[in-house]
């Protein structure tokens, strides 16, 4: 009896529990050509599922520091999480590729696969880090203890199949895999700036306190 009721609720949400791949079906259709993962900061609840899925897909371990997508958690002063992931910039804006000291660049846009790629063997690692410094969002990541080369989002592409695991696992549809629809200048920003923008929703709340003290409201006694 109970199970039947559950099924009805699932259906109204557009999800089909019988289908293993049903998770994520309610999201935008995946693009054929150039595509990137767009982040909806307002929907991010900061659970970290994307980080777990990403590190599992790329390295077979659960390890946040090896994830291509990262969640930053702020107190603005209400806790808010925002995502940070490569937006596969258009050629003119691709600062990382231009900053790479190697020739040809280690980090580059692959014209066949239509996504960013990294030639891991030639990367100079975290000590160089010029690509990270050039990127306005500091996206390329290094994890010197185990993987000392630039890590950026490769859209989970294997054999021409692109299945971004973070998009598929995100429980709030805060990540979408889509074709660029408009200039990305608001997606390429640093998570600090994203949080600062969201903080404007909280005007006029001060940054370090969440209330006016009773003395300010009723006068000191």
């Amino acid at each position, binding site marked *: 009896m109970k199970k039947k009721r559950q099924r009805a609720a699932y259906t109204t949400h557009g999800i089909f*529990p019988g289908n293993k791949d049903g998770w994520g079906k309610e999201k935008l259709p995946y693009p054929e050509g150039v595509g990137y993962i767009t982040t909806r900061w307002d929907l991010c609840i900061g659970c970290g599922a994307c980080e777990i899925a990403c590190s*599992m897909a790329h390295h077979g371990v659960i390890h946040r520091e090896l994830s291509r997508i990262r969640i930053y958690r702020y*107190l603005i002063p*209400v806790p808010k999480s925002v995502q940070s992931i490569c937006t596969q910039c258009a050629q003119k804006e691709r600062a990382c590729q231009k900053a790479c000291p190697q020739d040809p660049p280690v980090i580059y846009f692959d014209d066949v696969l239509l996504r960013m790629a990294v030639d891991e063997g030639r990367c100079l690692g975290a000590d160089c880090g010029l690509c990270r410094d050039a990127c306005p969002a500091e996206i390329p990541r290094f994890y010197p203890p185990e993987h000392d080369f630039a890590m950026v989002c490769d859209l989970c592409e294997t054999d021409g199949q692109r299945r971004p695991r973070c998009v598929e696992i995100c429980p709030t549809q805060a990540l979408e895999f889509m074709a660029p629809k408009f200039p990305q200048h608001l997606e390429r920003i640093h998570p600090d700036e994203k949080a600062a923008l969201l903080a404007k929703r909280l005007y006029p709340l001060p940054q370090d306190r*969440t209330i006016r003290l009773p003395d300010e409201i009723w006068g000191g006694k």
Partner: protein
Amino acid sequence: MGSKTFQLLEVDLTTQKIQRVDVTEDMRKFLGGRSFGAKILWDRVPANADPLSRENVLYMGIGPITGLLGSVTNISAKSPLTMLRGQSNMNGHFGNELIYAGYNAGILVTGQSHAPVYLYIKDDQAEIRDAAHLTGKSGLETQQMLTKELKAETDDQNFRFVSIGPAGENLVRNADVCHDFYHHAARLGMGTVMGSKKLKAIAVRGTQSPAYAYPDKVFESIKKLLHAGRLYIAENRRWGHTVSMARRYYNTTEGIKNKQLGWDAICDLFNPVHLEQQYKLWGDSCHGCFVGCKVPYMRREPPLGPCAGELRHDNAGGWSANAMIAGYELQTYLCAYVDYLGLDSEDVSGVVTWMMECYEKGLITQEDLDGIDLAWGNLEAICALLKKIAYREGIGNILADGLKFAPGKIGKGTEKYAMTGKGVAITSYEPRGSSKDALNLAATSVGELHGGRGSPERVMYDSMTSCSFWRRTIREIFGSTADWGITMLNAACGWNLTMEDWKKLELRGATMERCFSIREGYVPQRDDMLPDRFFEERITNKYGESKVLNREEFLEERKKLYRAYGLRDDGIPSTDLLEDLGLEFTIPVLQLILKN
């Protein structure tokens, strides 16, 4: 793959010594979190020690699967509020950060510092640092200041903190530990113990591998829960956990007017839809949990605004209709103020509503209260009294000692209106509406905590550690907590736990903490009791049904519950049980009690 090792960070504030200890064997026996905390208390805290002295310890407990379904940190210390075993849970991201820092058995703080300090932890680097500039700041201000400082120093803004507010510094007995502004390990005075150690905050950042034994199996289990838990997600993401309050008022299971009434029109002002549509900002979740049941609110309009916070059953239930607060307009301010002061909202609401009833009955006068007109629902008066409590001024100095000590000091017949058991305020729950709630409240060795905290199953959630809000959904999807727990623990640690091991772990944790409380003077038959009001005064719900608890039935049910927990009829573990669970070291200490 070999099984996992567990590292504990041990910090002695007296000698300023920090060391890393391997506790793999203890963790296998006690799992971590709450169970391991009970063992540490037994070993490290001398019998009848003063909780606010340097003899007490503070254990920030985490377990093998912290961060995989919520990231619960269970804090253990001898409670200054009840003088028994103290423990309190908080969720958020702190526990997970500790795992990434490599201290997967938590932090043990011993001794006492002579000047205010904070603890800085980044991976292998742990330091005790001066915190003089943070003194007097609220929990949130402390975290904001430290975030800025540490970002300037390390170029890393992803530190996570626990901190205490003014109440903790002033040793108010029900002070809380604050994390990320609305996660609080509030119950049983854990913030007070932190304050007594002059430990203002702990900052943690980790970048090491959590090294789960079989990550693919862990991930499978997470995904299964994620897919199947959608229904639960939908409901709780929308309203958060204030949703239970409205339902509870209708079921007569939520306290009204310090438990004097079964219904009042004011209850209808607490409808979660109102909060959602008018004040909700967004959803927020703890690490590894996909629900996002934290629903922060913000109100803009003056005079009370701007203010922001989060309302849950825990922190709002004790106020609301229990203090006759007229709706969310006032409640949103009140809870934010309690958090600012660093008090346990649930416990201090019990103290304030007790005073309100005494004031109404004329046992306490306006003069006794230093001129505060503590009428029901008077927000300004409540805030004035809270400030006195947090800073221990005037009458606040007595009330700050909580419901175990304050009623005796105030006297004048006020004692019987204190809704308490073992010194903990019974606030959110109304036991007369549900005998199950009544039992769950009373029959714990840790004080009258809500939500059946005494049951071995809950002890397991707090020990592994994972969020127990999922327990119903886990039972539906995996059959039982044990089935899910065994899978997760084996996958994460590379162990070969069986159902038999699980049952022992479950009972061992629950019995261990009972033994500690018994050693500190807890007598189950005497203390596992509710105030007389619940057995003597009838209340009527909205539809005219009258309710009261029957004492004989209650005692009979309590006996059954003890048996279900594997205990004797008087709530004391038998010698056989202790030997069976490998807790024989408790027998010589408890000899006298066990014999009777």
